[in-house]
């Protein structure tokens, strides 16, 4: 396993007080929070910061981490001393990280016989395409989980799981997979896995719950005169009637063509009138004829 320098992650020295650690953590979270940060790797950085604080912010875990000794460098290959875990009771591993790995290795045998506890629930996210929500899909997630190797030893391993994504899921919904969480102790059952559904950003669509908004480019004559056009949508290609006299921004509602959730959403087509380029004599002549014949001034009050 690779050594991780949590003090360096939080930008503090090993003598920092609990208060210093908390302050440094808060400062870093504010700097790299994905909702406010313009930093390129804000998500990864936030994960590192949280992992470091989960250990250094807890007096017991910090003592155990400090006991690993100095002189290790981040990224170097590393084995904890054999008796290292016996001096610390830190309540087991809390996160899928280097530290959890250490405690997974330390094993759970010292809880003794008769100790029974259901495994913790596990949380992860899964990202799908909008079309998956219309049709349903099977997607793969990879989880890092402790795996017992017998004799109270365990290592962190990747577990790949194929997950059925039901038709009709909306952003932020949680899928509960019974028994796919952390293993239980002393014969008790495993926890559950909660998967939060996220959508791959797609510039064509905006999703709000089960409602879907799609921009549809149209020509000036389709907008002005009305037309029947074929529009590719996540629900398949749909024949749509553009009403005469439409302008950019006009919304056409296709009832029930949003995400097919328990209460199906609607699909809103937002018209976007696109002008043909005046890049030929013929095109310029048409624009000039319009200018001459229509006497149209959009700025007239």
């Amino acid at each position, binding site marked *: 396993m690779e050594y991780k320098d949590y003090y360096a992650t939080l930008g503090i020295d090993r003598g920092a007080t609990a208060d210093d650690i908390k302050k440094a953590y*808060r400062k870093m979270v504010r700097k790299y929070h994905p909702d406010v940060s313009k930093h390129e790797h804000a998500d990864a950085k936030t994960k590192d910061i949280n992992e470091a604080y989960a250990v250094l912010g807890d007096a017991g875990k910090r003592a155990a981490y400090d006991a690993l000794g100095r002189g290790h460098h981040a990224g170097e290959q590393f084995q904890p001393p054999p008796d290292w875990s016996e001096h610390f009771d830190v309540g087991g591993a809390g996160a899928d990280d280097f530290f959890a790995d250490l405690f997974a290795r330390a094993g759970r045998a010292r809880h003794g016989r008769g100790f029974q506890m259901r495994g913790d629930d596990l949380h992860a996210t899964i990202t799908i395409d909008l079309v998956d929500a219309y049709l349903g899909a099977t997607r793969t997630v990879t989880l890092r989980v402790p795996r017992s190797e017998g004799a109270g030893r365990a290592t962190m*391993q990747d577990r*790949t799981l*194929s997950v*059925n994504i039901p038709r009709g899921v909306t952003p*932020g919904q949680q*899928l*509960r997979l019974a028994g796919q969480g952390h293993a239980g102790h002393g014969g008790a059952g495993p926890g559950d*896995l909660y998967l939060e559904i996220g959508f791959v950003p797609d510039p064509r669509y905006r999703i709000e719950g089960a409602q879907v908004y799609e921009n549809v480019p149209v020509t000036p004559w389709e907008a002005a005169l009305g037309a029947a056009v074929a529009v590719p949508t996540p629900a398949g290609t749909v024949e749509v009637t553009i009403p005469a006299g439409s302008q950019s921004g006009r919304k056409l509602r296709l009832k029930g063509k949003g995400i097919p959730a328990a209460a199906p959403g609607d699909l809103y087509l937002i018209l976007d009138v696109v002008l043909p380029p005046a890049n030929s004599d013929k095109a310029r002549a048409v624009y000039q004829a319009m200018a001459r014949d229509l006497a149209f001034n959009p700025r007239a009050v």
Partner: protein
Amino acid sequence: MVTNQIAIGVLIDEVTLDVDELARACRVEPDWVVRHVQAGVLGEQAAPRFRSSDLARARRLLELERHFDADEELAALVIDLADEVRRLRARLRALGLKDA
């Protein structure tokens, strides 16, 4: 070794979570859930059953309270503001405006 199996899940919203299930998913005591429902910052007081959005909200409340010693009202305010920022950013993107 990698195990590969197809797992079928239950969509939270088609079923809802009770106080104990939500507490277990957040690794807190049920009291924590009850206290936050009573304070009006989580779920609905009339019917303490929880949806997907409540689970995500509970986990964010917990993180803010633990790491920033935030009071539950303040944590709720931060989350509401962050949600509003996300919603507005999504609208900006939809309008073709750069997320500045």
